[in-house]
């Protein structure tokens, strides 16, 4: 194990606390300073993440279609999203005349706040986690539903029939697919035995649940992947903003910075579901270790834990984008049929099998 603080991230929070105590003295002041630092770091991280994800999405889309994508602003178009963001911020904020003004202005904030808060529970590395909460996973799943509320509020308050139809579709779709997503996560929770993200990661010391839970781990991983694509309202489940039918769905009437907030929330949401998937199924920040192969394990430890976390999450994000630019959009009835007649029975039976396996101890390396 490398002793540098970049690898041993659990040393960082005590060191920061000690430094702040020396600087400020009173424990209340120290706590307030820590809150401010963490909030600023998280906000900065989310902004940078959204800009990067938009650029990556455009590049992946372009190369899937054998194009180049943005190339002009900065090297390989790296600053394109920054320029687009600045443009959006400098545009006029238009509120439709008949709109419900308060809800109309609140909706983008709801969407954005939901993803912002949920990201605070993800452990990026040992002890690098804004909030440590013993039912973190349930809380994140609950907070995710506040995003739906934002979408629905946007569609309702816009006073536009296309917005309302898009919001209705979003509501129906996310409520349906949340069932499968949650059941798939629960199938792993019965193995991990905890709802705390930290405990879930710690339980994967011997191996990742995707392969340690025989077959059901992989099936649950795929189910969660499909359901989370639907929860992010991305193709092939992007009926919410089906351009040919609904112009832009719930954010038809939004422009400038409010539209940017929806857009930002959408992209951070992708990162959020991928990081949950990486944490629960792929071991979070745990490096890939093979039993007693000390040489290989030492090699894997050369990559810091946050490197492992971001590598796993990035691979999942790439798969999300790959799926988006491959498949066509489903029809509304196909969407509902798929969830209620196929995915939900499958995830329920996965949960049943997983419970039997977990109680009988029939999985690899039982503790």
């Amino acid at each position, binding site marked *: 194990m490398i002793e540098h603080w970049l690898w041993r991230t659990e040393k960082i929070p005590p060191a920061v606390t000690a430094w702040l105590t020396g600087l400020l003295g009173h424990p209340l002041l120290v706590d307030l300073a820590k809150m401010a630092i963490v909030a600023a770091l998280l906000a900065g991280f989310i902004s940078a993440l959204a800009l990067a994800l938009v650029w990556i999405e455009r590049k*992946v889309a*372009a*190369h*899937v*279609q*054998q*194009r*180049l994508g943005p*190339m002009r602003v900065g090297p390989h178009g790296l600053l394109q999203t920054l320029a687009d963001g600045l443009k959006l911020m400098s545009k006029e904020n238009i509120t439709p005349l008949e709109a419900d003004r308060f809800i109309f202005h609140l909706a983008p904030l709801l969407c954005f706040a939901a993803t912002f808060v949920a990201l605070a529970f993800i452990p990026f590395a040992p002890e690098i986690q804004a909030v440590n909460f013993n039912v973190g996973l349930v809380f994140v799943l609950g907070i995710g539903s506040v995003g739906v509320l934002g979408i629905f509020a946007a569609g309702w308050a816009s006073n536009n029939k296309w917005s309302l139809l898009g919001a209705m579709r979003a509501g129906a779709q996310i409520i349906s697919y949340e069932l499968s997503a949650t059941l798939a996560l629960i199938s792993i929770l019965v193995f991990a035995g905890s709802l705390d993200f930290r405990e879930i990661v710690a339980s994967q010391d011997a191996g990742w649940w995707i392969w340690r839970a025989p077959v059901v781990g992989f099936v649950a991983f795929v189910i969660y992947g499909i359901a989370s694509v639907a929860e992010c309202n991305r193709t092939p489940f992007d009926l919410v903003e089906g351009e040919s039918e609904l112009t832009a769905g719930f954010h038809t009437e939004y422009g400038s910075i409010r539209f940017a907030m929806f857009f930002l929330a959408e992209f951070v949401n992708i990162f959020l579901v991928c990081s949950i998937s990486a944490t629960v199924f792929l071991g979070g920040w745990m490096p890939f270790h093979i039993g007693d192969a000390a040489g290989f394990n030492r090699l894997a430890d050369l990559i810091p834990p946050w490197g492992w976390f971001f590598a796993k999450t990035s691979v999942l994000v790439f798969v999300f984008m*790959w*799926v988006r*630019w*491959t*498949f066509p959009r489903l029809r509304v009835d196909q969407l509902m049929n798929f969830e209620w007649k*196929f995915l939900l029975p499958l995830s329920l039976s996965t949960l049943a099998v997983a419970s039997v396996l977990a109680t009988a101890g029939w999985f690899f390396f039982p503790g």
Partner: protein
Amino acid sequence: MAIFGKTATAIKGLVGGMWITINHYWRFSEVITQQYPENRATLRMAPRFRGKIRLLRDPESGAHRCTACGLCVKACPNNSLTVQRERDPATNKFRLAGYFYHFERCTLCGLCVDTCKFSALAMGNDFENAAFERGALTLRLDTPDGAPRPAPEAP
């Protein structure tokens, strides 16, 4: 139990689709986007692009194939072509004396190329058509080096 067969077919189809797109993704050398002002020297043009018309030459003799018959002038809906001809003193046949192209009136419809019986005309690839004055758009095509040049003497 048809559901299992359907599921297997669906998975096969979805994975096949993703296999196709990832294979396109990795073909970085076959990207079709062209970064135009920078790559002007190596620009790839579609062979059937319709740019300014050009006069073709006989590859053996190097002379213009145009016989100055004037069919293209009759075919042109905008009267954007003018052909001047003269008699060859030796053979007493008509020959081309001046081929003028009023590009400011041309719609690039290609009817002149379609009607030419001697394959003496073709649509070119030149698409940079902007000019600062109208006069620069009246061109003479039967120049010695083949490059069109502004023709203030055009009738």
